[in-house]
């Protein structure tokens, strides 16, 4: 599905996916950080593990897009 930039320019599929990944993963990381405040230690460890995985996935997506350029 085609995506548009804020300036209504059509985005290439790779960039559209990157933007989506960045938005989704950052939202997820932000949510995870918020959860840490009220989480018991064991739950907090799980959340931090998930956050680390999300960050790695985001890094992979950025690296993949960068390598295509």
């Amino acid at each position, binding site marked *: *599905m*085609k*995506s*548009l930039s804020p300036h209504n320019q059509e985005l290439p*599929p790779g960039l559209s*996916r990157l*933007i*989506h*990944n*960045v*938005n*989704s993963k*950052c*939202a*997820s*990381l*932000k*949510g*995870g950080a*918020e*959860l840490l405040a*009220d989480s018991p230690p064991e739950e907090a460890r799980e*959340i931090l593990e*998930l*956050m680390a995985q*999300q960050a790695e*996935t985001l890094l992979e997506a950025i690296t993949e897009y960068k390598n295509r350029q």
Partner: protein
Amino acid sequence: MFTPKLSILVIEDDLLERKHIASHLKDHKVKFASDFDAAASKIKERNFDLCFIDLQLNENDDDYSGLKLIPLAISKGIYSVVMSGHDGGPTVARAHELGCHDFYAKGDEANSIQQVLNKFRRQQDKSKEKRLFTERFITNDPDTQSAILEALKYAPSELPILILGPSGTGKTSLAHLIHAFSLRPGPFVPINCAAYTEELLEAELFGFKKGAFTGANENRKGKLLLADEGTLFLDEIGVMSLKMQTKLLKAIEEKSFLDSLRLEEGSRLCFATEEHYRCAKQHGLDKALERFMDAIILHSLENNAKKRTHVIRELKISNWLFYQSLKRSRISNLRKRSVKSNPANNPVNVQAGLLSTKGKRDGKTNEILIPA
């Protein structure tokens, strides 16, 4: 205020995001699905009030498979909310084309989810209103509908209500409706005061023991006791004698009668009479109640199609306050706030501020307008 739990399905492949969303839906019954097949299965099997749908359900989901779940959810009557990493664009537009009810961009779940739930509840209230006037109190007149909705704001309170109006205007239906909306656990118990002599009315209200009078072949609980924790609806209250009114109100105030029987919580009183407000005063109804309480009376009008303002008086409802629910200082403050309507009409004492309605005076008619 009691807010019922909603049944919610969250379709999200990201585990961390699922945990985050769950933290904002703690007060509700929430189920999760992490892929398309699981989501489709859950939508088909169960009844949900809302469904939060992530459009991309895995890393390689370039087709945004979540879009296909929207019509499926809608076909089951589920309020569909799309979540997306995009804050707009063709994907979101497509989701709206497919009929999704709401959308939010990920990143501010705390506010976004609350706004979604608020909007959903407003929509639910609106559809309940529509059913109200097609199933419960049938009327197409917008003024009557507006006035009934205003009246139902009083339903959850403990305040007694007096409904004035000619025969056939729906006083009993309205009383039923007020009871239903009050969420009181007890029953709706009606009694037509005009159908009994004073002695029999007393027996009906307070009960009697076997042998108390001719025809009393068994012990019987009175309607007052039967209506405990519910609503006692006294139709044709205007025919009740002053003596009986006093006795009744004393029983309500003290939650006991016959020197022995005690009410758990008491009943909520709803009165009705065909008497016009002025006539009600002449019949002593007003005087009797003034002995025990400060009466708040909202002027009741005859059905008048010319009246377009959202004045609660259009519903022929009066509100009476019992001392037991007020402190004297509040009563004197209420009296100071009493205002009069256009003297050409019947006098109006509007003290609706106690019930958190903010009235303002119409400059032309001098009448009190209560916001709808």
